[in-house]
């Protein structure tokens, strides 16, 4: 498999139509699936955060976990909730800042270790 999620024989591991089949994961454990989907539905209801804000967070997380299904689903959802490309791109930059920052902050550990090794 390469970085684009494609097998060596050319078939993509990710099939767009599989997103519509998400509910089928109940097939082998309907009890846990029901709990998950109930929880999922509850999470995205407007609360202290608006539905649009939650959708933008979902989009940002989708980019962090690099889930193409989630990116498709939450780009659509964000647009339906009135978030335009500017808002969505800002959300993705938040992902990028945290992911980049998470790497960069480990530079302190590197420097600490380097100091330990220094005389």
């Amino acid at each position, binding site marked *: 498999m390469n970085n684009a999620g494609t097998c060596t024989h050319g078939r993509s591991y990710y099939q767009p139509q599989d997103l519509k089949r998400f509910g089928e994961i109940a097939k082998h454990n309907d009890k846990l699936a029901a709990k998950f989907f109930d929880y999922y539905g509850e999470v995205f209801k407007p609360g202290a955060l608006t539905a649009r804000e939650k959708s933008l967070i979902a989009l940002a997380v989708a980019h962090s976990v690099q889930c193409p299904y989630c990116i498709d689903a939450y780009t659509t959802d964000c647009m*339906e909730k009135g978030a335009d490309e500017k808002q969505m791109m800002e959300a993705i930059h938040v992902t990028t800042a945290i992911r980049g920052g998470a790497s960069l902050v480990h530079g302190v550990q590197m420097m600490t270790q380097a100091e330990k090794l220094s005389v």
Partner: protein
Amino acid sequence: MSRTPVQPAAEQLRILNQGSARLSALPRFGDKLRDAGVHPLRATGVDILQVNVGKLCNQTCQHCHVDAGPTRREIMERSTFEDCLRAIAAGGVRTVDITGGAPEMNPHFRWFVEECRRLGAQVMVRCNLTILTAGPAYRDLPEFFARNQVEVISSLPHYSQSWTDRQRGDHVFEKSVTGLRALNAVGYARTPGLKLNLVSNPVGVFLPGDQAGLERDFKRELKSQFDIDFNSLYTITNMPISRFLEALLKSGKLEDYLEKLVQAFNPQAALGVMCRNTLSVGWDGLLFDCDFNQMLEIPVTPVGTRHIRDFSRSALDHREIALDQHCYGCTAGAGSSCGGATV
């Protein structure tokens, strides 16, 4: 934006019904209503007379179901307006909803508004906002609207310039902001009795989101960025006819969109659709269940009263609504009507 003529109404209906194997495989809208126990769909009365005074407009919007524009010449004549007034007076119509095109461009527009008010009807005008900046002949429209206590309903797809201009044309957002400020300046949305409502269509191949949530966002952004006030936001689903149908065909997204509408079918939304209490009059006086049926040339079902001069409440009040595949646009999700979501 320039206008490319759309396909004839009969061809649009053929495409929606059997334009491809996927479209032919979709359940018929009438069957869907039958399964939900709401067939036949009947009108509950004629509370609102929606008068489309013509296809002439100063804009050429990408999604326009009227295929309106500056080169259109089909506008309502004085005698047809007079037929409308007779129907309003005789039929006890409480609300007159004036639409177009840009209705203000019809030379009889102001006279008609005043006559409707004289008859005691509430008047709503679907104003595209940019007409308010289109020259000296239109500059005093805010005062005219206020004087006649007209409810103004205006399209603003989004509070961002990029999305609004993408759907409605270059510089439309900027002109719309100017128009909204002019309406606020004469008291709209700031004085009781002067209502200013906005309409938002999705800027693309997706369904409108939660109306209340979008209204909160629109209010916050328009107030903070432009000091603009309005009363309510109505969300409307893009109807897969006319220019939007052309765009869907061109981009190869028609099947996906229709399937999305069918999947989102909501029988509760069907009960609140606008055709149940509204009668639509075309620029030539012909009668339809809604503005969309008007554009698809699907007349009202009672054969003896298909022109406003033959208006008969007894024949029209509980008429069976004429349905076709495009009606899925009004029953998807939270529903869609000229007054926004229906559930």
